Protein backbone atom coordinates (compact mmCIF):
# COMPACT_ATOMS: atom_id res chain seq x y z
CA UNK A 1 0.00 0.00 0.00
CA UNK A 2 1.43 3.40 -0.89
CA UNK A 3 0.94 6.33 1.42
CA UNK A 4 -1.36 8.10 -1.02
CA UNK A 5 -3.81 5.19 -0.85
CA UNK A 6 -4.05 5.22 2.91
CA UNK A 7 -7.28 6.26 4.54
CA UNK A 8 -6.81 9.19 6.90
CA UNK A 9 -8.91 8.78 10.03
CA UNK A 10 -10.25 11.63 12.11
CA UNK A 11 -8.67 11.35 15.57
CA UNK A 12 -9.76 10.93 18.33
CA UNK A 13 -11.95 8.27 16.75
CA UNK A 14 -14.94 9.04 18.97
CA UNK A 15 -15.90 11.35 21.84
CA UNK A 16 -14.80 10.04 25.25
CA UNK A 17 -17.37 7.83 26.99
CA UNK A 18 -16.38 7.06 30.59
CA UNK A 19 -13.32 4.78 30.37
CA UNK A 20 -14.35 2.89 27.27
CA UNK A 21 -11.53 2.62 24.80
CA UNK A 22 -12.72 2.87 21.20
CA UNK A 23 -12.62 -0.70 19.76
CA UNK A 24 -11.05 0.74 16.61
CA UNK A 25 -7.68 0.78 18.42
CA UNK A 26 -7.78 -3.02 18.71
CA UNK A 27 -8.66 -3.30 15.05
CA UNK A 28 -5.73 -1.05 14.10
CA UNK A 29 -3.34 -3.05 16.27
CA UNK A 30 -4.31 -6.12 14.27
CA UNK A 31 -4.67 -4.63 10.83
CA UNK A 32 -2.75 -1.39 10.45
CA UNK A 33 -0.50 -0.68 13.46
CA UNK A 34 0.67 2.58 11.95
CA UNK A 35 -2.22 4.55 10.55
CA UNK A 36 -2.75 8.06 9.20
CA UNK A 37 -4.77 10.41 11.40
CA UNK A 38 -5.90 13.99 11.41
CA UNK A 39 -6.54 15.67 14.74
CA UNK A 40 -8.77 18.73 15.23
CA UNK A 41 -5.72 21.01 15.03
CA UNK A 42 -2.35 20.75 13.33
CA UNK A 43 -0.90 18.62 10.59
CA UNK A 44 -1.65 15.02 9.62
CA UNK A 45 0.33 12.37 11.48
CA UNK A 46 1.00 8.70 11.96
CA UNK A 47 -0.64 7.03 14.95
CA UNK A 48 1.14 4.03 16.50
CA UNK A 49 -1.12 1.65 18.42
CA UNK A 50 1.04 -1.39 19.28
CA UNK A 51 2.94 -1.47 22.57
CA UNK A 52 6.36 -2.09 21.01
CA UNK A 53 5.94 0.65 18.42
CA UNK A 54 4.62 3.17 20.94
CA UNK A 55 7.63 2.50 23.17
CA UNK A 56 9.92 3.07 20.21
CA UNK A 57 8.28 6.38 19.39
CA UNK A 58 8.56 7.57 22.99
CA UNK A 59 11.93 6.11 23.84
CA UNK A 60 14.07 6.16 20.71
CA UNK A 61 16.32 9.18 20.18
CA UNK A 62 15.45 9.13 16.46
CA UNK A 63 12.12 10.65 17.48
CA UNK A 64 12.22 14.26 18.65
CA UNK A 65 9.88 16.45 20.66
CA UNK A 66 11.99 19.57 20.12
CA UNK A 67 11.32 19.35 16.37
CA UNK A 68 7.62 20.01 17.04
CA UNK A 69 8.42 23.62 17.99
CA UNK A 70 8.69 24.71 14.35
CA UNK A 71 5.72 22.67 13.17
CA UNK A 72 1.96 22.83 13.43
CA UNK A 73 1.89 19.81 15.66
CA UNK A 74 -1.21 17.58 15.70
CA UNK A 75 -3.28 18.21 18.81
CA UNK A 76 -6.76 18.43 20.32
CA UNK A 77 -6.17 21.90 21.77
CA UNK A 78 -6.34 25.09 19.79
CA UNK A 79 -3.30 26.24 21.76
CA UNK A 80 0.21 25.02 21.00
CA UNK A 81 2.71 24.44 23.76
CA UNK A 82 5.11 27.38 23.73
CA UNK A 83 7.99 26.19 25.90
CA UNK A 84 8.96 23.72 28.59
CA UNK A 85 10.39 20.26 29.13
CA UNK A 86 7.93 18.66 26.75
CA UNK A 87 9.34 20.72 23.88
CA UNK A 88 12.94 19.70 24.54
CA UNK A 89 15.17 16.73 23.71
CA UNK A 90 18.24 15.49 25.54
CA UNK A 91 20.76 16.94 26.28
CA UNK A 92 18.93 20.29 26.76
CA UNK A 93 16.01 18.49 28.36
CA UNK A 94 18.42 16.62 30.63
CA UNK A 95 20.01 19.86 31.83
CA UNK A 96 16.68 20.94 33.36
CA UNK A 97 15.20 17.61 34.34
CA UNK A 98 18.21 16.45 36.35
CA UNK A 99 17.85 19.51 38.59
CA UNK A 100 14.56 18.21 39.94
CA UNK A 101 14.77 14.46 39.31
CA UNK A 102 16.28 13.61 42.68
CA UNK A 103 13.37 15.21 44.53
CA UNK A 104 11.05 12.66 42.86
CA UNK A 105 12.92 9.39 43.30
CA UNK A 106 11.15 6.46 44.95
CA UNK A 107 13.42 6.86 47.97
CA UNK A 108 12.57 10.54 48.48
CA UNK A 109 8.88 9.95 47.80
CA UNK A 110 8.76 7.18 50.44
CA UNK A 111 9.71 9.80 53.03
CA UNK A 112 6.49 11.65 52.17
CA UNK A 113 4.27 8.59 52.58
CA UNK A 114 3.53 8.90 56.34
CA UNK A 115 2.55 12.55 55.95
CA UNK A 116 0.41 11.71 52.89
CA UNK A 117 -1.37 9.04 54.96
CA UNK A 118 -1.95 11.54 57.72
CA UNK A 119 -3.45 14.10 55.32
CA UNK A 120 -5.68 11.44 53.71
CA UNK A 121 -6.93 10.28 57.09
CA UNK A 122 -7.65 13.85 58.19
CA UNK A 123 -9.68 14.45 55.04
CA UNK A 124 -11.69 11.29 55.68
CA UNK A 125 -12.20 12.31 59.32
CA UNK A 126 -13.72 15.57 58.14
CA UNK A 127 -15.99 13.79 55.66
CA UNK A 128 -17.20 11.42 58.37
CA UNK A 129 -17.79 14.26 60.84
CA UNK A 130 -19.86 16.21 58.29
CA UNK A 131 -21.71 13.02 57.28
CA UNK A 132 -22.75 11.69 53.88
CA UNK A 133 -23.21 12.52 51.10
CA UNK A 134 -19.94 14.21 50.15
CA UNK A 135 -18.25 15.12 46.90
CA UNK A 136 -15.15 12.91 46.77
CA UNK A 137 -13.54 15.20 44.19
CA UNK A 138 -13.79 18.31 46.33
CA UNK A 139 -13.36 16.79 49.78
CA UNK A 140 -10.65 14.21 49.18
CA UNK A 141 -9.20 13.86 45.67
CA UNK A 142 -8.39 17.55 45.20
CA UNK A 143 -6.91 18.56 48.57
CA UNK A 144 -4.75 15.43 48.98
CA UNK A 145 -2.36 15.84 46.00
CA UNK A 146 -2.42 19.63 46.38
CA UNK A 147 -1.29 19.44 50.00
CA UNK A 148 1.51 17.02 49.14
CA UNK A 149 2.89 18.99 46.18
CA UNK A 150 2.60 22.27 48.10
CA UNK A 151 4.65 20.91 50.99
CA UNK A 152 7.24 19.45 48.62
CA UNK A 153 7.64 22.62 46.55
CA UNK A 154 7.11 25.12 49.35
CA UNK A 155 3.89 26.62 48.02
CA UNK A 156 1.46 27.90 50.69
CA UNK A 157 -1.41 25.41 50.71
CA UNK A 158 -3.83 28.19 51.65
CA UNK A 159 -3.33 29.64 48.15
CA UNK A 160 -4.82 26.52 46.56
CA UNK A 161 -8.13 28.10 45.63
CA UNK A 162 -6.27 30.47 43.34
CA UNK A 163 -3.65 28.26 41.71
CA UNK A 164 -5.92 25.22 41.39
CA UNK A 165 -8.33 27.22 39.23
CA UNK A 166 -5.45 28.50 37.08
CA UNK A 167 -3.95 25.02 36.80
CA UNK A 168 -6.93 23.86 34.76
CA UNK A 169 -5.19 25.72 31.91
CA UNK A 170 -2.56 22.97 31.61
CA UNK A 171 -5.13 20.21 30.99
CA UNK A 172 -7.80 22.26 29.20
CA UNK A 173 -8.45 21.91 25.49
CA UNK A 174 -11.72 23.78 24.98
CA UNK A 175 -13.15 23.97 28.54
CA UNK A 176 -11.49 27.39 28.70
CA UNK A 177 -11.07 29.89 25.88
CA UNK A 178 -7.63 30.40 24.35
CA UNK A 179 -7.52 33.80 26.08
CA UNK A 180 -8.48 32.32 29.45
CA UNK A 181 -5.82 29.63 29.12
CA UNK A 182 -3.15 32.22 28.30
CA UNK A 183 -4.35 34.42 31.17
CA UNK A 184 -4.37 31.59 33.72
CA UNK A 185 -0.89 30.52 32.68
CA UNK A 186 0.35 34.09 33.10
CA UNK A 187 -1.30 34.15 36.53
CA UNK A 188 0.55 30.95 37.47
CA UNK A 189 3.86 32.43 36.28
CA UNK A 190 3.31 35.67 38.18
CA UNK A 191 2.35 33.74 41.31
CA UNK A 192 5.47 31.55 41.04
CA UNK A 193 7.72 34.58 40.43
CA UNK A 194 6.42 35.99 43.71
CA UNK A 195 7.30 32.80 45.60
CA UNK A 196 10.74 32.70 43.95
CA UNK A 197 11.42 36.29 45.04
CA UNK A 198 10.40 35.40 48.61
CA UNK A 199 12.74 32.38 48.72
CA UNK A 200 15.59 34.45 47.32
CA UNK A 201 15.23 36.80 50.26
CA UNK A 202 14.56 34.05 52.78
CA UNK A 203 15.50 30.50 51.71
CA UNK A 204 13.75 27.55 53.34
CA UNK A 205 14.02 23.76 53.06
CA UNK A 206 11.89 23.20 50.00
CA UNK A 207 12.24 22.58 46.28
CA UNK A 208 11.63 26.20 45.27
CA UNK A 209 14.54 27.28 47.49
CA UNK A 210 16.75 24.45 46.21
CA UNK A 211 16.16 25.42 42.58
CA UNK A 212 16.64 29.13 43.29
CA UNK A 213 19.93 28.24 44.96
CA UNK A 214 20.94 26.01 42.00
CA UNK A 215 20.41 28.93 39.63
CA UNK A 216 21.99 31.58 41.82
CA UNK A 217 25.12 29.46 42.37
CA UNK A 218 25.55 28.78 38.65
CA UNK A 219 23.26 30.52 36.20
CA UNK A 220 24.35 28.28 33.31
CA UNK A 221 22.17 25.58 34.90
CA UNK A 222 18.92 27.33 34.03
CA UNK A 223 17.60 30.73 33.06
CA UNK A 224 15.17 32.67 35.23
CA UNK A 225 12.42 31.95 32.69
CA UNK A 226 13.22 28.22 32.84
CA UNK A 227 13.13 28.34 36.63
CA UNK A 228 9.67 29.90 36.60
CA UNK A 229 8.32 27.48 33.98
CA UNK A 230 9.81 24.41 35.63
CA UNK A 231 8.34 25.18 39.03
CA UNK A 232 5.00 26.20 37.56
CA UNK A 233 4.89 22.96 35.60
CA UNK A 234 5.63 20.93 38.71
CA UNK A 235 2.91 22.71 40.65
CA UNK A 236 0.20 22.51 37.99
CA UNK A 237 0.95 19.17 36.36
CA UNK A 238 2.04 17.95 39.80
CA UNK A 239 -1.48 17.80 41.06
CA UNK A 240 -3.95 18.03 38.16
CA UNK A 241 -3.54 14.46 36.97
CA UNK A 242 -3.57 12.83 40.40
CA UNK A 243 -6.61 14.91 41.37
CA UNK A 244 -8.29 13.37 38.32
CA UNK A 245 -7.05 9.82 38.77
CA UNK A 246 -8.17 9.34 42.40
CA UNK A 247 -11.88 9.66 41.44
CA UNK A 248 -11.22 7.77 38.19
CA UNK A 249 -9.82 4.80 40.08
CA UNK A 250 -12.60 5.02 42.65
CA UNK A 251 -15.15 5.01 39.83
CA UNK A 252 -13.65 1.86 38.32
CA UNK A 253 -13.67 0.12 41.70
CA UNK A 254 -17.26 1.11 42.50
CA UNK A 255 -18.41 -0.12 39.09
CA UNK A 256 -16.46 -3.39 39.49
CA UNK A 257 -17.69 -4.51 42.91
CA UNK A 258 -15.97 -7.89 42.70
CA UNK A 259 -12.63 -6.11 42.28
CA UNK A 260 -13.39 -3.75 45.15
CA UNK A 261 -14.28 -6.76 47.32
CA UNK A 262 -10.99 -8.38 46.36
CA UNK A 263 -9.09 -5.28 47.53
CA UNK A 264 -11.09 -5.08 50.76
CA UNK A 265 -10.28 -8.71 51.50
CA UNK A 266 -6.59 -8.12 50.85
CA UNK A 267 -5.43 -4.48 51.05
CA UNK A 268 -1.87 -5.69 50.35
CA UNK A 269 -3.07 -5.81 46.74
CA UNK A 270 -3.34 -2.02 46.61
CA UNK A 271 0.04 -1.35 44.91
CA UNK A 272 -0.68 -3.95 42.22
CA UNK A 273 -4.21 -2.57 41.87
CA UNK A 274 -2.85 0.94 41.33
CA UNK A 275 -0.57 -0.35 38.54
CA UNK A 276 -3.44 -2.21 36.94
CA UNK A 277 -5.71 0.83 37.18
CA UNK A 278 -2.96 2.95 35.59
CA UNK A 279 -2.95 0.47 32.72
CA UNK A 280 -6.70 0.07 32.47
CA UNK A 281 -7.92 3.69 32.68
CA UNK A 282 -7.39 5.44 29.33
CA UNK A 283 -6.71 8.78 30.99
CA UNK A 284 -6.07 10.76 27.82
CA UNK A 285 -9.00 11.67 25.61
CA UNK A 286 -6.51 11.20 22.76
CA UNK A 287 -2.78 10.76 22.65
CA UNK A 288 -0.85 13.89 21.85
CA UNK A 289 2.68 15.25 21.90
CA UNK A 290 3.77 13.79 18.55
CA UNK A 291 7.40 12.88 18.10
CA UNK A 292 9.07 13.90 14.84
CA UNK A 293 11.33 11.42 13.09
CA UNK A 294 14.83 12.86 12.70
CA UNK A 295 15.69 10.24 10.07
CA UNK A 296 13.81 7.58 8.10
CA UNK A 297 12.63 4.90 10.55
CA UNK A 298 10.99 1.55 9.82
CA UNK A 299 8.11 1.23 12.26
CA UNK A 300 5.07 -1.02 12.35
CA UNK A 301 5.63 -2.11 8.75
CA UNK A 302 5.82 1.45 7.48
CA UNK A 303 8.77 3.62 6.53
CA UNK A 304 8.29 6.79 8.55
CA UNK A 305 10.13 9.53 6.68
CA UNK A 306 12.42 12.02 8.36
CA UNK A 307 10.36 15.01 9.47
CA UNK A 308 7.06 13.13 9.82
CA UNK A 309 5.19 13.27 13.14
CA UNK A 310 4.17 10.07 14.94
CA UNK A 311 1.75 9.96 17.86
CA UNK A 312 2.07 7.00 20.22
CA UNK A 313 -1.17 5.91 21.84
CA UNK A 314 -0.50 5.06 25.49
CA UNK A 315 -4.04 3.79 26.00
CA UNK A 316 -3.82 1.45 23.03
CA UNK A 317 -0.35 0.20 24.03
CA UNK A 318 -1.71 -0.56 27.49
CA UNK A 319 -4.38 -2.79 25.93
CA UNK A 320 -2.05 -4.61 23.55
CA UNK A 321 -2.91 -8.33 23.71
CA UNK A 322 0.67 -9.20 22.74
CA UNK A 323 1.83 -7.88 26.13
CA UNK A 324 -1.23 -8.06 28.39
CA UNK A 325 -3.26 -11.28 28.20
CA UNK A 326 -7.00 -10.56 28.25
CA UNK A 327 -6.18 -6.84 28.03
CA UNK A 328 -9.69 -5.48 28.53
CA UNK A 329 -10.19 -7.17 31.87
CA UNK A 330 -9.16 -5.64 35.15
CA UNK A 331 -6.82 -8.07 36.89
CA UNK A 332 -4.95 -7.15 40.07
CA UNK A 333 -2.92 -10.35 39.93
CA UNK A 334 -1.11 -9.99 36.60
CA UNK A 335 2.29 -11.62 36.80
CA UNK A 336 3.88 -8.68 35.00
CA UNK A 337 2.45 -5.27 34.25
CA UNK A 338 4.85 -3.15 32.20
CA UNK A 339 2.18 -0.54 31.41
CA UNK A 340 3.21 2.82 30.03
CA UNK A 341 0.56 4.89 31.77
CA UNK A 342 3.30 7.29 32.88
CA UNK A 343 4.80 7.37 29.41
CA UNK A 344 8.20 6.07 28.45
CA UNK A 345 11.67 7.34 27.65
CA UNK A 346 13.22 10.71 28.40
CA UNK A 347 9.80 12.30 29.05
CA UNK A 348 8.52 9.54 31.38
CA UNK A 349 6.44 11.39 33.99
CA UNK A 350 8.83 12.99 36.45
CA UNK A 351 6.19 12.72 39.18
CA UNK A 352 5.44 9.04 38.53
CA UNK A 353 6.74 7.77 41.86
CA UNK A 354 4.95 10.56 43.73
CA UNK A 355 1.70 9.86 41.88
CA UNK A 356 2.02 6.12 42.57
CA UNK A 357 2.51 6.73 46.27
CA UNK A 358 -0.40 9.19 46.47
CA UNK A 359 -2.72 6.86 44.56
CA UNK A 360 -1.72 3.91 46.77
CA UNK A 361 -2.39 5.92 49.91
CA UNK A 362 -5.67 7.31 48.57
CA UNK A 363 -7.06 3.93 47.55
CA UNK A 364 -5.81 2.25 50.73
CA UNK A 365 -7.45 4.86 52.96
CA UNK A 366 -10.73 4.85 51.00
CA UNK A 367 -10.94 1.05 51.05
CA UNK A 368 -10.15 0.75 54.75
CA UNK A 369 -12.15 3.63 56.11
CA UNK A 370 -15.29 3.45 53.96
CA UNK A 371 -16.35 -0.19 53.97
CA UNK A 372 -19.71 0.78 52.44
CA UNK A 373 -18.47 3.37 49.93
CA UNK A 374 -20.97 3.92 47.10
CA UNK A 375 -22.19 6.57 44.66
CA UNK A 376 -24.78 8.85 46.27
CA UNK A 377 -26.47 9.36 42.88
CA UNK A 378 -27.24 6.87 40.11
CA UNK A 379 -24.12 6.20 38.02
CA UNK A 380 -25.83 7.69 34.94
CA UNK A 381 -26.13 11.05 36.70
CA UNK A 382 -22.40 11.43 37.32
CA UNK A 383 -21.05 14.44 35.46
CA UNK A 384 -17.96 14.01 33.33
CA UNK A 385 -15.52 16.70 32.41
CA UNK A 386 -15.30 17.80 28.81
CA UNK A 387 -12.95 20.00 26.82
CA UNK A 388 -9.97 18.55 28.69
CA UNK A 389 -6.94 16.49 27.68
CA UNK A 390 -7.95 13.92 30.27
CA UNK A 391 -11.05 11.95 31.21
CA UNK A 392 -12.42 12.59 34.63
CA UNK A 393 -15.41 13.40 36.80
CA UNK A 394 -16.50 16.90 37.67
CA UNK A 395 -17.99 15.70 40.93
CA UNK A 396 -18.42 12.34 42.58
CA UNK A 397 -21.13 12.38 45.25
CA UNK A 398 -20.52 9.42 47.55
CA UNK A 399 -22.09 7.93 50.66
CA UNK A 400 -20.77 5.27 53.05
Amino acid at each position, binding site marked *: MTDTQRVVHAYPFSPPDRFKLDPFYAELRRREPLTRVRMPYGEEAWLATRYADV*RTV*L*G*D*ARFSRAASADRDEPRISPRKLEAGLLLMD*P*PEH*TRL*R*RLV*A*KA*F*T*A*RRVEQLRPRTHEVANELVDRMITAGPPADLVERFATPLPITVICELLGVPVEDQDRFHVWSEAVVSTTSLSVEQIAGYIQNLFAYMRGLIAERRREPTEDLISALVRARDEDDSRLTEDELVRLLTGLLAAGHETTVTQIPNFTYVLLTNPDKLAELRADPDLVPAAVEELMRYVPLGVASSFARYATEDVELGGVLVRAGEPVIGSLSSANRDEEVFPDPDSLDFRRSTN*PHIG*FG*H*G*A*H*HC*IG*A*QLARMELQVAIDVLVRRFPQLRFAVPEKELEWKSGMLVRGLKRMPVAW
Partner: protein
Amino acid sequence: MVSDHWRISVDGDTCIGAGICAGTAPAAFRLVNGVSTPIHETVDADDAVRAAAESCPVEAITVRDRKGAVIAPEP
Protein backbone atom coordinates in the same frame (compact mmCIF):
# COMPACT_ATOMS: atom_id res chain seq x y z
CA MET B 1 45.82 13.54 30.94
CA VAL B 2 44.50 10.00 30.72
CA SER B 3 40.77 10.04 30.10
CA ASP B 4 38.76 8.80 33.03
CA HIS B 5 36.80 5.57 32.75
CA TRP B 6 33.58 4.89 34.53
CA ARG B 7 31.86 1.62 35.33
CA ILE B 8 28.10 1.37 34.96
CA SER B 9 25.91 -1.13 36.74
CA VAL B 10 22.14 -1.52 36.65
CA ASP B 11 20.13 -3.36 39.29
CA GLY B 12 17.74 -5.24 37.04
CA ASP B 13 15.44 -6.16 39.92
CA THR B 14 14.97 -2.51 40.85
CA CYS B 15 14.67 -1.18 37.28
CA ILE B 16 11.09 -0.34 36.30
CA GLY B 17 11.86 -0.01 32.59
CA ALA B 18 10.86 3.66 32.39
CA GLY B 19 13.45 4.13 29.66
CA ILE B 20 14.65 7.50 30.93
CA CYS B 21 18.29 6.34 30.86
CA ALA B 22 18.10 5.07 27.29
CA GLY B 23 16.45 8.34 26.27
CA THR B 24 19.01 10.43 28.15
CA ALA B 25 22.18 8.50 27.23
CA PRO B 26 21.31 6.29 24.24
CA ALA B 27 24.97 5.46 23.64
CA ALA B 28 25.25 3.93 27.11
CA PHE B 29 21.92 2.26 27.89
CA ARG B 30 19.35 0.18 26.07
CA LEU B 31 16.32 -1.79 27.19
CA VAL B 32 16.57 -5.54 26.89
CA ASN B 33 13.23 -7.25 27.53
CA GLY B 34 12.06 -4.06 29.18
CA VAL B 35 15.02 -3.82 31.57
CA SER B 36 17.79 -1.24 31.32
CA THR B 37 21.14 -2.73 30.37
CA PRO B 38 24.48 -0.94 29.95
CA ILE B 39 25.71 -1.29 26.38
CA HIS B 40 29.28 -1.39 27.72
CA GLU B 41 30.19 -1.87 31.35
CA THR B 42 33.03 0.60 31.07
CA VAL B 43 32.62 3.97 29.38
CA ASP B 44 34.59 7.17 29.02
CA ALA B 45 33.53 9.79 31.52
CA ASP B 46 30.35 11.27 30.08
CA ASP B 47 27.98 13.75 31.65
CA ALA B 48 24.99 12.12 29.93
CA VAL B 49 25.74 8.87 31.79
CA ARG B 50 25.92 10.71 35.09
CA ALA B 51 22.64 12.47 34.26
CA ALA B 52 20.98 9.17 33.40
CA ALA B 53 21.90 7.76 36.82
CA GLU B 54 20.72 10.95 38.54
CA SER B 55 17.46 10.84 36.60
CA CYS B 56 16.55 7.21 37.35
CA PRO B 57 13.37 7.36 39.44
CA VAL B 58 14.27 4.21 41.37
CA GLU B 59 18.05 4.79 41.49
CA ALA B 60 18.73 1.48 39.80
CA ILE B 61 21.85 2.80 38.03
CA THR B 62 25.20 3.22 39.75
CA VAL B 63 28.17 4.91 38.09
CA ARG B 64 31.60 4.44 39.67
CA ASP B 65 35.03 5.79 38.83
CA ARG B 66 38.10 3.61 38.29
CA LYS B 67 38.74 3.35 41.99
CA GLY B 68 35.15 2.28 42.71
CA ALA B 69 33.96 5.54 44.22
CA VAL B 70 30.31 6.32 43.42
CA ILE B 71 29.91 9.19 40.97
CA ALA B 72 26.14 8.99 40.68
CA PRO B 73 23.53 8.97 42.05
CA GLU B 74 24.15 11.20 45.04
CA PRO B 75 23.56 9.46 48.37
